[in-house]
């Protein structure tokens, strides 16, 4: 699936065999007054991705620097971002790859870090995405950021093509950022620490935006923080898995209790 992003990355660099822009109108019937649906989708996705999506560029730059400063070849930044495409796992994968740990350890780490995505299927709007290839790419590229953007309040009326283009752009920002970061990392002193704070800042922004959508729903963030604290305290090695299980169980219990307590009353 990395080919989608790879092709997109390569596209601007191939001047020759691609038909010149002025030849294209001869092949396609000229558009009426409205722009073509595809162009409209891409334009909408560009706008949708402009805020959080562009935040992936500094994070990708940071990742590229981390890769080469750890002693891995620069192309590992391209390889990891285009195939694995799961930010926090990629950051973890760097020390694992440097240590050449067994592949079973890589698989277990990937499972534990990303098992949270199992819960995303409850709300990610994949049912709006049409076509096997689009669905396949959409699940492949269902990152935390893509999930946050396409489950937000203002994304309720986005159709499938707009969501998939958004995902393509997000991956493009991430791969390009990491590639540039890895190639330019020799200019950055290897003693420079703290670039990985970009990930903390990204999730701070995503949490603030998601909370703004649910201002009257105080129990949800309280339950989330409690789940995180309990997970940190009791299961520090399996923090994410424990926190997501506790949070989902807590939400379900709350919903079932509210259902029996106030049957029939609207529960936002």
């Amino acid at each position, binding site marked *: 699936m990395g080919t989608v992003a790879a092709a997109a990355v390569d596209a601007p660099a191939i001047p020759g065999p691609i038909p010149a822009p002025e030849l294209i109108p001869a092949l396609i019937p000229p558009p009426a007054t409205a722009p073509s649906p595809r162009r409209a989708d891409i334009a909408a996705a560009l706008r949708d991705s402009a805020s959080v999506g562009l*935040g992936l560029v*500094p994070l990708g730059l940071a990742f590229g620097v981390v890769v080469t400063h750890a002693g891995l070849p620069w192309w590992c930044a391209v390889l990891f971002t285009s195939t694995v495409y799961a930010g926090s796992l990629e950051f973890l994968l760097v020390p694992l790859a440097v240590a050449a740990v067994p592949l079973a350890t890589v698989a277990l780490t990937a*499972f534990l870090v990303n098992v949270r995505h199992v819960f995303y299927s409850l709300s990610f709007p994949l049912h709006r995405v049409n076509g096997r290839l689009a669905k*396949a790419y959409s699940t492949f590229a269902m990152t935390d950021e893509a999930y946050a953007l396409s489950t937000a309040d203002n994304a309720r009326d986005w159709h499938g093509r707009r969501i998939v283009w958004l995902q393509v752009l997000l991956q493009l920002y991430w791969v390009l950022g990491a590639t540039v970061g890895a190639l330019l990392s020799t200019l950055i002193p290897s003693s420079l620490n703290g670039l990985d704070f970009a990930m903390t800042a990204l999730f701070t*922004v995503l949490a*603030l935006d998601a909370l703004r959508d649910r201002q009257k729903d105080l129990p949800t963030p309280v339950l989330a923080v409690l789940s995180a604290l309990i997970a940190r305290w009791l299961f*520090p090695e399996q923090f994410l898995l424990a926190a997501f299980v506790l949070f989902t169980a807590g939400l379900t219990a709350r919903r079932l209790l509210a259902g029996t307590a106030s049957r029939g009353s609207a529960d936002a």
Partner: protein
Amino acid sequence: MPDTGYLFAAAGVAAAVTWALRALPFAALNALRSSAVVRDLSARMPAGVMVILLCYCLRDLPVTHPARLVAPLVALAVTVGVHLWRRSALLSIVGGTVVYVVLVNAVHLG
């Protein structure tokens, strides 16, 4: 440095596990989509998930060394402040990260 074959294999394994975790639950989910509990969960989960991921990033805050809390907490406050002020994700992320990098490296508070 590990050899090229190993690096590709490691990336392939991590990619396969991640994609399976993202794609397979959808197959099981179609039957549940009409459930009111699942609909309620799906409306509330995004905000909680992002809060948990933020807590995960902050899980190793050195709470027993107050001096080393200065850089992360100031950078976090800058990120939140800039975001509430301008609502520009890029500005908030870059601002918070630059403050953190400067504090950790130049001021040696980290």
